[in-house]
């Protein structure tokens, strides 16, 4: 078996930098035309208004290596790509909500519409990698949204992050940015804003 030349794709959000502007949330919704009420990404503020204790953090599906959602799914609709992005097949999903029980992060979302608020097919962050349909097809966009990864683009949330608190990409790359930031801490301005 050949070793892939990349690590797994990861999100990282720096609570020292996240300012709860919700830019990531709106960028995600606009890009994928997500229905109102479905939040693939959320910004959570803890201790709001408490001097010295307030922090904010942007969270979505964390694309776990050992994804609990995949393990509990009765129809086995989840699949994990070689780069670690956790996706699912909406044609197989039965909307049971088991994945929501299993997920430690509250990532799975269920549309609210329909009679009696039936759950409908599960929707979640795809890390802008679409789904099992043909890449960049109309069907893929309709069910899963844009496939930016296939075009070599950074996912919408991180690309729109106003303070660059939210990073996403190959875990090695994300770690490298973090290392670079740590190394330059307190040593004066050494980088351009976009890459710091």
């Amino acid at each position, binding site marked *: 078996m050949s070793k892939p030349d990349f690590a797994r794709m990861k999100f990282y959000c720096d609570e020292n930098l996240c*300012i709860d502007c919700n830019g990531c949330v709106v960028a995600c919704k*606009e890009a994928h035309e997500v229905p109102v009420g479905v939040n693939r990404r959320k910004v959570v503020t803890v201790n*709001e*208004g408490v001097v010295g204790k*307030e922090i904010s953090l942007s969270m979505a599906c964390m694309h776990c290596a050992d994804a609990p959602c995949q393990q509990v799914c009765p129809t086995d609709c989840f699949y994990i790509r070689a780069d670690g992005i956790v996706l699912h097949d909406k044609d197989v999903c039965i909307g049971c909500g088991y994945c929501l029980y299993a997920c430690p992060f509250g990532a799975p979302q269920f549309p609210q519409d329909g009679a009696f608020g039936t759950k409908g097919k599960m929707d979640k962050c795809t890390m802008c990698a679409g789904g099992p349909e043909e890449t960049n097809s109309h069907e893929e966009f309709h069910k899963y949204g844009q496939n930016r990864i296939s075009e070599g683009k950074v996912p919408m949330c991180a690309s729109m992050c106003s*303070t660059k608190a939210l990073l996403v990409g190959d875990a090695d790359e994300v770690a490298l940015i973090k290392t670079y930031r740590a190394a330059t*801490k*307190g040593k004066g301005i050494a980088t351009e804003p976009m890459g*710091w």
Partner: protein
Amino acid sequence: MANTWGYGAMTNHIGDMQNSKAIIIFGANPASNHPIAMQHILKAKEQNGAKIIVIDPRFTKTAAKSDVYCRIRTGTDIAFMYGMIRLIRENNWVDKSFIADRVYGMEDIFTECEKFTPEHVEDVTGCPKELLIQATTAFATAEPGCLIWNQGWTQHTIGSSNTRLGSILQLTLGNMGKPGGGCNILRGHDNVQASTDLGCLADTLPGYYGLSEGSWRYFSKQWNVDYEWMKSRFTSKAMMEAKGFSLGLWIHGVLDKENAANNADTPLKALVCIGNGISTITQTHKVKEALDKLDLVVFIDPYVNDAAVITTRSDNMFLLPAASQVETSGTVVNTARSAQWRSKVVEPLYEARPDHEILFDFAKRMGFYDQYIAGMGKGKNFTWPEDATDEIARSLKTIGFQGRTASRIKKHTANWHLFDSVSLKGKGVTTKEYYGLPWPCWNEKHPGSPVLYNINLPVSQGGMGFRNRFGTERNGADLLSAKGSAPVGSRIDGGYAEITSKNIEELAGITLTDAEKKAVEGKNWKTDDSGILVDKALAAGLAPYGNARARTIVWNFIDHIPKHREPLHSFRPDLVKKYPATKDQKNHYRTNVRYESEQNAQKWVENYPINIVSGRIVEHMGTGTETRASKYLAELSGEMYGEVHPNLAAKLGIKDNEMMWVYGTGEGKIKIKCKYSLRVDENSVFLPQNFSGVWSGESLESRYPKGTAPHSFGESSNQVTSYGYDQQTSCPETKCSLVRLERA
């Protein structure tokens, strides 16, 4: 600021904040209102070790990222700053040589600050003195420190004093004219700086030339029209040269009969509103009354202006759909004086038309189209907007627009990737230029000036001293800067007056040829179309506007030095006697404005015992007309609310998420949701100012033309903000008011 050192603009720029070692933020909330600016602030904190100090009545999202947070009562910034200056002096943190060389009148400030001991500051502001000392120490001992402010300072009866004392604070520490220092005013949105540069104000022609006869004659020439013709457009020469009604005060020109006397004996009869959310000024109920009373109302806007829904008039109101920014092209200017070219992405959709086309059509029908376009000098065959951009560059000499031609701005925008975002310096084809040619950009070879008043650079590379704007001498004191404080490479090693045809030969050490003499005869740097005066000055290392001292004393203002004055509707009536409002003013922007009499009209706090803190929220912009029409933003922030401390709410018997009535000191009242929050103190309610479409409990949704209603509605906070206008600028007081809360 213009009255302190010559120009009223952000002195440094956003990327430059990264060079700061301390950033003090008063009356601004960049985390919510300028998220991109916040990136630079947080980068300064992490990489440069800058201390972030936030002074605000509300613990904002910006405050959540601060090292020191000081909660003060609204409208007491001046007391806090004098407290800082007193401590700076006591601890010998004053930059003595900077003051000796480049500042006039600091003694009066040092006398005034003696009143503001830490104990007294604590009493006036409510901020514990330990925090005042901590904040002052962190800021004053950092080298350099920058100051950020925003509408939290300007929208006060004493807003102009706030901004002046902030400028003086920076002078005290010698933080002006250096990277990482300065006064960084974050404008409310893009192009605000350009709007004022182009004279979208009640008291000046473009380029801050003022309204005097000389200014009108200068602009008549720039616009290629006859001065006499221009004069004939006005009722009288006196009215031509009188300040107009301001954005804050126009309602009183419609409603209050006595103001007709200030306005050529007539009330205002028509209003044309282009892209302005006029319901964000105070007393929305008065705005409604005024809109109802006018003979004609025209709104030019991409969205339905919410004021058009607030008025109940049934006739003579027109909504002209304007193109949005992606449907037009031209320059856009950021808060830091840099310009960028904005390209058209799509043709205007549906019936929308670009603003200039609408205005051209007005001009045609009113019979002055030929004169209207004459300034571009191309007859009817002009290219829009390039020719207009070049006309602006040519005309706005006071702020050094001569180098900001359309072709240069386009070149910068096209080579965006070649500029460094911290220094703004270019590479490759734009080497030695600064991004967007921040003004002053004195001629077509000039690189722009990223940091104003920096004497460590030659004038030809963006350096300059303070502007000589207030004369050369005052009561025997020299207003020009001292020896040794001229920009690098200056022929004169010290202060000098602004450049005129009379002094150019002596100051620049040159002899003009006869042809040059003829070209500049009777001109100065602001009026010389030949460009000779500016070019010769730059060649001698001189700033065209001179090199003078900043001043702390503004002898043409009501308050010669900034003074703390209690808000008109003060939470602390016991302090009103010591710090009273100014006397009532006649003909202030054509309006008779109440100050003292309003403050003493009744014991306001007895009936209205709660302070207002107002501000924007991150999801919405201005009145929210555009953002509330976005379904996702409406989902995130879909209804109006008031943040109330749980202890206050408990006292009033209002539960979390219950509805409450808020009664203002005027006639306005709003019914909004009570949101328990620890962001505010126990005497205050925070009201976001981005909602509209509900009027004292009644929805106005049915009044929107079919298909144009936004997704979210809410009561407008300005229905309950009080009467009050800046004593100099007439900016409405939205930040200090009193209200009464009751469970609905």
